[in-house]
């Protein structure tokens, strides 16, 4: 680290000023620690899992292990697995969009609240749900949404409904709870970005006659695209790998790849198949994320935003 920081910081001003041919600059070395961390603690162990997914057993502990495609073939043998992959991506996408829609106004309010107390209160409201712990929080949602839960009991006693609404044991309940978990991630990511947008730009637009909506659509929203990109990627990545929430909230209706992976590891003890499912999920989601990154990255006009 010490020897890294010296060259990293001696960025000469001149070459940076020529945007035509960007040479790899010295600060690129700062990627070192992260790269090291990922290679040793992710690539290497994940490589072990990926290797297990093409083997008949675990060569570290048994003999006579050979290469096989059986675990990948199994994925295609029954359409249930593919359906689970589609459901995973669908739930991830809906959760991301919903988190953005819910998170943006709150992030905007936080970024534009000037009173210190108001701001601190808002920050608490955002951070507090994150620290409840995923399992406990999901149980709280079950208490709210289940057939005998708070919402249904209240509506029933007021005579507004005659039988409990199907609020959980389905995809709806799963997404509600997932959105609740991931909205704070969206809010905190967006706040930093919106907070940096010069308010005078908005005021200028308004004084030039743009109404609130137009100011938002033409000034604030485009400038917050980097935050939207970052927040959506985080939420998408998190919700496609979520396990506890779909498991507890989805009942028999929801089946996602992470649920299947947990079953394979924890109850079927088939590490090869679990590894294969992991490889499939990771590959598909990387493709989705790189595509999204490229599209929105170009849209936001930042070629190196990534």
């Amino acid at each position, binding site marked *: 680290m010490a020897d890294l920081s010296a060259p990293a910081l001696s960025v000469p001003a001149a070459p940076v000023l020529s945007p035509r041919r960007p040479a790899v600059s010295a600060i690129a070395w700062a990627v070192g620690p992260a790269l090291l961390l990922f290679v040793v603690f992710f690539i290497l162990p994940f490589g072990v899992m990926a290797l297990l997914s093409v083997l008949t057993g675990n060569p*570290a*502990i048994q003999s006579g292990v050979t290469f096989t495609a059986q675990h990948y073939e199994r994925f295609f043998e029954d359409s249930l697995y593919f359906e689970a992959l589609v459901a995973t991506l669908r739930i991830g996408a809906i959760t991301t969009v919903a988190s953005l829609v819910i998170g943006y106004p709150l992030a905007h309010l936080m970024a534009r609240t000037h009173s210190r107390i108001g701001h601190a209160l808002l920050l608490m409201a955002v951070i507090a749900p994150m620290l409840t712990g995923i399992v406990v929080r999901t149980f709280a949602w079950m208490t709210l949404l289940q*057939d005998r839960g708070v919402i249904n009991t209240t509506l029933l006693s007021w005579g507004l409904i005659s039988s409990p609404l199907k609020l959980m044991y389905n995809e709806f309940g799963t997404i509600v709870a997932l959105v609740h978990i991931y909205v704070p991630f969206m809010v905190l990511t967006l706040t930093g970005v919106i907070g940096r947008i010069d308010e005078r730009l908005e005021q200028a637009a308004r004084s030039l006659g743009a109404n609130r909506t137009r100011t938002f659509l033409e000034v604030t929203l485009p400038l917050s695209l980097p935050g939207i990109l970052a927040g959506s990627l985080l939420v998408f990545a998190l919700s496609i790998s979520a396990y506890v929430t779909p498991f507890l909230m989805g009942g*028999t209706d929801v089946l996602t790849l992470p649920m299947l992976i947990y079953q394979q590891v*924890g109850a*079927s003890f088939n590490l090869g198949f679990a590894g294969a499912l992991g490889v499939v999920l990771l590959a598909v989601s990387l493709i989705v994320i790189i595509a999204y990154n490229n599209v929105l990255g170009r849209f936001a006009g930042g070629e190196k935003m990534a």
Partner: protein
Amino acid sequence: MTTIKPDRRSILKAGAAGAALAALGAPHIANAQAATLKITTWGGKWGEIMKGDLLPAFEREFKCTVSADQAFPFLPKLQASPRGNPIYDVLHANSNEQWKAVEFGIVEPKVDPKNVPNLKDVYPYAINDKIAGVSIFTSGIGLGYRTDKGLGKPTSWKDLADPKLAGQRGGYLIPVNSLGQAHLMMLGQIYGSGMQDLDAAYKALEALKPIKLFDFTGQMEKALLSAEVTMGVIHDSGVYRYEGTPEPVDFALPSEGVLALEQVLTVTPGSKVKELAYAYIDYMLRPDVQKKLAEAVWYSPSNTKVQLDAKYDAKLFNTPEKVARLIQPDWKWYNARKDAIDLRVTRILRG
């Protein structure tokens, strides 16, 4: 089933140690001075008694330290560790997982009575060929129900299919829960030609829809207590533990028999402290230890010599007559078909 050949030398050695131990009449184990015994054990109330009382007493008596892992899942961790240097010496798990472990060759299929003298006092069901290792406790899986919903006490497994219970009956996620798996086999028994009649079981399962499914028994307990379900598959311990509280829940033993949910101990073949491992199993089978745990968590003890207090005696399976009502599923058979069953039941229950 793949039969695992136990390393003969280690068995001889262990046997010799056991003999020497018996001869000395002393509970001390040679060379166990600084030994560490690595075990798995449950959390909750069970874990409190183990960590607060039973394990420290074992450590003092055998002059060793016990490292008790309570973090699931145990089997994948054992699976990943080298055979010659396993992460556990004694595996505590339910029967279905133990048979899987036997199949992988990561636990010894049987416990030799020479090494564990208390085995002579256990009920036959605890060491028969449906069991890998030894079952130290069992609970009975039957039907838990609410007493304030106008339901009569259920008498048969078929009562769960009562149309009145639509959407208010509870079961388990079959791929991950052994109670759910046992119940599926029971459906084959009740509605078909036997525990292995899967077609009948699938049909019966379909008829139980809509049903609320849970991951583990604690969740079912809470669902019963909060009236989210009014009748569900559960083990006796999960209901009896509320005895003496005002909760309107009770447990019913179906006339067709209750399913055994066994707490099984096995020893890993690569364990470096096998004498200590056997001593631990023997310790867990001692009448006083069994009584303490049985009365703390309402598990039926395996040792025939245990004298339970009246209120436990009335309910737990602790006489030959009562034990005869326990039905032990054939887990070797089930495990061999698990993948196909998982797919099928997931499809049946979806939507």
